[in-house]
């Protein structure tokens, strides 16, 4: 792995894989803790979809890198500053409204992104994209239904849902950024242009938020850097827990 395009390709795969894995991990934190049994099962389903998206991408990245690292080495032995996920997915679950706001914002974006990536010239990405797009359609529907229910439910749920949207909003800008790596991947026919998705995302969010009788948060300052390895305080804690066994037992198989 030497050409600059291959380096970009590897980072690109890790951005996709890390984002899916970290959100899947966050959703797994709801297991056994959701407001209803049905929702417990639904959140695990979404988590399973997301971790399932990440796994073939890590395997592909490991092969592309050609350094003898495995999918698990990539997931369990990289430090926070080597993780390239969007910041929005590492945000803590807080309450159910915050979790649903995060899910709606991310899944609405991800559905559009995977749809575009179905045309990727990287057949592994295209393969994951075809499956992931369908999964995200369900994730969007599920989270949209909750945002509407909570927004238009009781006074308390309305306030919490608005707070959830306000909480997540400053992490949505990063989703639409395009940097040198993206440009190289777009040029190679591997990647997609995230900036082009913003109007459709905004429209979709506006529709759900209106039906939920909530207010669309304003686009103020946007936090960014996840895809370059600059994270919020939360990712370090998440990885410390997630990676504890492989790091405590170097070389062990599980």
């Amino acid at each position, binding site marked *: 792995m030497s050409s600059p395009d291959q380096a970009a390709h590897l980072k690109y795969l890790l951005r996709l894989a890390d984002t899916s894995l970290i959100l899947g991990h966050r959703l797994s934190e709801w297991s056994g803790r959701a407001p209803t049994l049905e929702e417990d099962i639904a959140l695990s389903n979404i988590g399973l979809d997301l971790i399932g998206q990440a796994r073939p991408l890590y395997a592909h990245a490991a092969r592309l890198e050609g350094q003898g690292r495995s999918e698990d080495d990539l997931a369990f032995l990289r430090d926070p500053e080597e993780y390239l996920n969007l910041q929005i997915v590492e945000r803590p679950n807080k309450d159910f409204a915050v979790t649903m706001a995060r899910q709606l914002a991310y899944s609405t974006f991800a559905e559009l992104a995977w749809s575009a990536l179905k045309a990727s010239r990287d057949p592994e990405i295209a393969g994951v994209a075809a499956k992931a797009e369908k999964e995200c359609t369900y994730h969007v529907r599920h989270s949209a239904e909750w945002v509407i229910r909570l927004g238009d439910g009781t006074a308390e*749920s309305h306030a919490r849902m608005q707070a959830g949207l306000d909480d997540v909003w400053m992490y949505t800008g990063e989703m639409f950024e395009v940097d040198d790596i993206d440009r190289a991947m777009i040029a190679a026919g591997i990647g997609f242009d995230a900036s082009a998705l913003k109007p459709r995302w905004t429209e979709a969010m506006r529709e759900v938020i209106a039906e939920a009788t909530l207010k669309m948060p304003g686009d103020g300052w946007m936090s960014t850097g996840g895809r370059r390895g600059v994270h919020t305080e939360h990712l370090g804690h998440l990885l410390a827990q997630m990676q504890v066994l492989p790091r405590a037992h170097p070389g*062990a198989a599980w």
Partner: protein
Amino acid sequence: MYTQALSTERPAPASAVEDPALLARFQARIDAEERIEPMDWMPKAYRQTLIRQISQHAHSEIIGMQPEGNWLTRAPSLKRKLQLLAKIQDEGGHGLYLYSAAETLGVSREELVGQLLSGKAKYSSIFNYPTLSWADIGAIGWLVDGAAIMNQIPLCRCSYGPYARAMILICKEESFHQRQGYEIMMTLAKGTPKQKAMAQDALNRWWWPSVMMFGPSDKDSVHSDQAMRWKIKRFTNDALRQKFVDATVPQAHYLGLTIPDPDLTYDEASKHWITGPIDWDEFWRVVKGEGPCNKQRLETRRKVHDDGAWVREAAEAFAAKRRKAKRAAAA
């Protein structure tokens, strides 16, 4: 599993409170291996026994999500992470399915959950033990799901139709869990010295509680006779326990692990593995609330219930608003 006969009050005999003709016809149907369905006539004690047993089973599935959930965010590979998340999700599904089966007997899920949260209802004591290492996840799948299968396979032929059908689906998934758990143990047993020690330690801690999962010895079990006649139970606690021990001891040997029972012997004549004495004092102590995690498990469940209250209220309020809007539109 999870169906250890825990109640200590002896119910009034059915013959004392029911119409003898109806009772005789009911027993004849059972003897003919017919399935009893929700709308059919059934003795009150039959209904009560099933409600207690099915709801205890459902509660056990739900509480059982906690000890395994303790390792979910620390599962050591992507494969294990997916497996464990899916397994715990299955257990939640079992709980849901069993609550529905109990509801066919005329109780509501809310009522049953209320009994769990108040501490009135029991669940399997095995889940009052802590998961201290990753190997415990393997041991639970292998031993606890393994014991559950032994207990539940006969229940696939339980006389009550909805319970029997639930068991068929659940048993398939439990046996999948059992194989997965054994595979985790195998990986650890063949792993580094530390991993092997971890596996042995988990077996040491989970063996006896698993053996006790089948409930008190037949001579101390209150409900067995009537439950057998009604085909809610097909084998005695001790018979099921023996089946489990016979199946599991060779599996432990294959792993190169030692069963923590110095008195364990193989009886050539009967072809059975005979265990040393079981510490029933420990069993009853944990059943009655004094196990390592009884308080923690209930506290967690109550907190989850309380934390989710505003969400459930919102969902109800929303549904009511939509119904009202629909009626207004129709008018």
